[in-house]
């Protein structure tokens, strides 16, 4: 009985996955097609002639390897800072009562609702006027600040308000009693967070990791204005060159996309191991 359900479930999931994957089939097939075969009607779902030229082209003659490295650096640092700062802040918002908690949380959430387009120029100015960086003096004059640097790229990604929100929602869900017991033992709030709640929160930490990595990976508008040399380009900037000015180089675009997707999928697969039940789910909700 139980076995039958398992296999039926696999079948349903496989079917849904197949539908979701349909556009990718085309993406992959374009990546392996020569330019002349890209568009034909009726569409041929498999290349008639398989080629690795597109991959060789994007890897050897374009800025892709550099962009890939930069994106990995920015992505990893983004994950680290978000996991640390956003989880802690989310926990505090959910569990600790402190002055100004509610308005501060509302402001944090609100920050995510202002379209990025209008934050762009102000953020650019903040980055450019960053004191004591990139030739700037104490008042942020004279140099280029954090423009065209990893720090500049990272700035708006360091703490993503929605991750704080996510962490808060998770911790809201966890039973209060576990903390009370630890408090009676004289544990500090940080200790309670660190050794009582964080271990159970592995799924949320993994989720925040995946989401912040993805967020950094696909960020386009900010890198566009902050980066001014090819050696600082990130993947979305490099990818956009294949679809430049309406002249789309389908093969290279799709090949580069395949390459650019692999690391995120890797991060996802690594993180999803932690989507398992927390260790101590003994507390029962009142």
């Amino acid at each position, binding site marked *: 009985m139980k076995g039958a359900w398992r296999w039926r479930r696999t079948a349903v999931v496989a079917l849904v996955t197949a539908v979701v994957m349909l556009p990718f089939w085309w993406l992959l097939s374009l990546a392996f097609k020569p330019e002349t075969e890209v568009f034909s009607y009726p569409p041929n779902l498999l290349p008639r002639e398989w080629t690795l030229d597109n991959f060789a082209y994007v890897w050897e003659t374009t800025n892709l390897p550099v962009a890939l490295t930069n994106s990995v650096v920015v992505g990893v640092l983004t994950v680290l800072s978000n996991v640390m*700062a956003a989880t802690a802040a989310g926990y505090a918002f959910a569990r600790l009562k402190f002055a100004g908690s509610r308005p501060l949380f509302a402001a944090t959430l609100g920050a995510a609702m202002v379209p990025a387009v209008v934050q762009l120029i102000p953020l650019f100015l903040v980055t450019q006027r960053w004191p004591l960086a990139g030739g700037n003096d104490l008042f942020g004059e004279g140099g*280029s600040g*954090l423009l065209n*640097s990893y*720090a500049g790229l990272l700035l708006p990604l360091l703490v993503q308000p929605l991750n704080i929100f996510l962490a808060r929602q998770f911790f809201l869900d966890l039973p209060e009693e576990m903390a009370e017991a630890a408090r009676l033992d004289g544990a500090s709030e940080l200790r309670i967070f660190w050794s009582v709640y964080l271990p159970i929160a592995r799924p949320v930490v993994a989720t925040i990791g995946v989401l912040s990595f993805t967020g950094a990976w696909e960020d386009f508008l900010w890198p*566009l*204005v902050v980066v001014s040399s090819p050696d600082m380009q990130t993947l979305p900037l490099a990818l*956009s*060159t294949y679809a430049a000015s309406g002249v789309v180089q389908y093969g290279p675009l799709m090949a580069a996309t395949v390459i650019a997707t692999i690391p995120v999928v890797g991060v996802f697969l690594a993180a999803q191991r932690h989507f398992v039940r927390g260790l101590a789910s003994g507390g029962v909700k009142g």
Partner: protein
Amino acid sequence: MKRPHKHRPWRVLAAALTTGLALSACGGGGGAGGTAASGGDKTLRVWFPGNLSNEVTWVNGTLVPAFEKQHPGVDVQVEFVDWANLSTRLSTAFAGNTAPDVFGHGNAAAAGFADAGRIQPLDEQVAALPEADRTDLTFLNDGKVGGKQYIMPLRGFGYLVAYRKDLVKEAGLDFATPPATWEDLRAAAGKLAQREGGKVTRSGLLMPADNTISMSQAFGTLLFQAGGKFLAGDGKTVTWNAPEGVAALEHLTGLYQGSDAVSSGLGEKTASTGAQHPLATGRAAMALVDDATLKTIHEQSPELAEKIGVLSPVKKAEAVSFGGAGNGMFISAKTKLKKEAWDFISFMLKPENVKAYSLTVGGIPARTSVAKDPELTKVSYLAPFMEAAPQFRGNPNVATWTQLRDALGKEIEKALRGTTPPRKALDDAAAAAEELLKG
């Protein structure tokens, strides 16, 4: 709940995070700046619009090294900015005073930048050019705003009607005497169109209609052919709703609407779509295309190259078409390297570079003499456009043009889709535009 246990965690995490920030700041130190070049060289920062791979290769591999060799002590730093992102980049750069010394943009941007005082007039430098050069530079006059030279066009573009020779023959038409008037072209389109159940399945004459901008350019082509203008000479009075404009829009709308419609596909992306272009797929027998789009068709469907012909502009009052100066170069008002900036632009406009630029990037060369070069005239997708260069007319160079065009394009779409009659659409657009022109 009690409070006393809350202050410590703040501090610990603050410390952890500050360390993280500091680390990331260190990691990025290397790439910043770019103004300090080695050996006391002057660094000239140049932005090229667009980032086509062969353009990047040519500029970085040939043009810049040749310039630097001729101008020792100048280090040229080039950045390629895709058209779609150019305005975003420029406005942040202007806001932060980090604009490059030289930057490229479309001709239509000249008036706005000039108005805002972000670019320098180049009349002195142009006047210092040899007379022969000045007359040879085909699009020089298009680069003037209020009589002053602000942009140096690097190439031109234009719209011409391309057709499928095989389909024309199949329909029993002979373009040995090509269509010369609106009526001729319309009649040919009528014969070439195919319908099924009241729907046009093959367009007789497809007009650019990707979005409201290209719809306004299709309208512009007919407006000029009818002898009309977008704005009066003062740049402050809308004239697109004069009788010439109404005739143009009625003609354009007639291609898509009514029982004798000959075209379909409003809103469909066709610009630079190569093998997907309706001319290539056979869903259109004739189409008004720009040189860049025709180039992509030739490149992606080489087997069709032989089968595609191009017509000279047809006329109602005048045999002209939409086009003119494409992108060009500005010198930033704030540059400290005025001389080097001009040196770079005039270097790009040397005959050999103009030729190489057209061969790599496409487009009508910026010099009339180069347009006669056999290497260029044998490029079949370029030749007809070079020939028609004197017949191209462009946008008026006024500061608010992009907004005016937006207002116009929206109303044109309404007319083309049959929700507003042509005359009313143009009047509505004119009313909206006059608001904008008043400021």
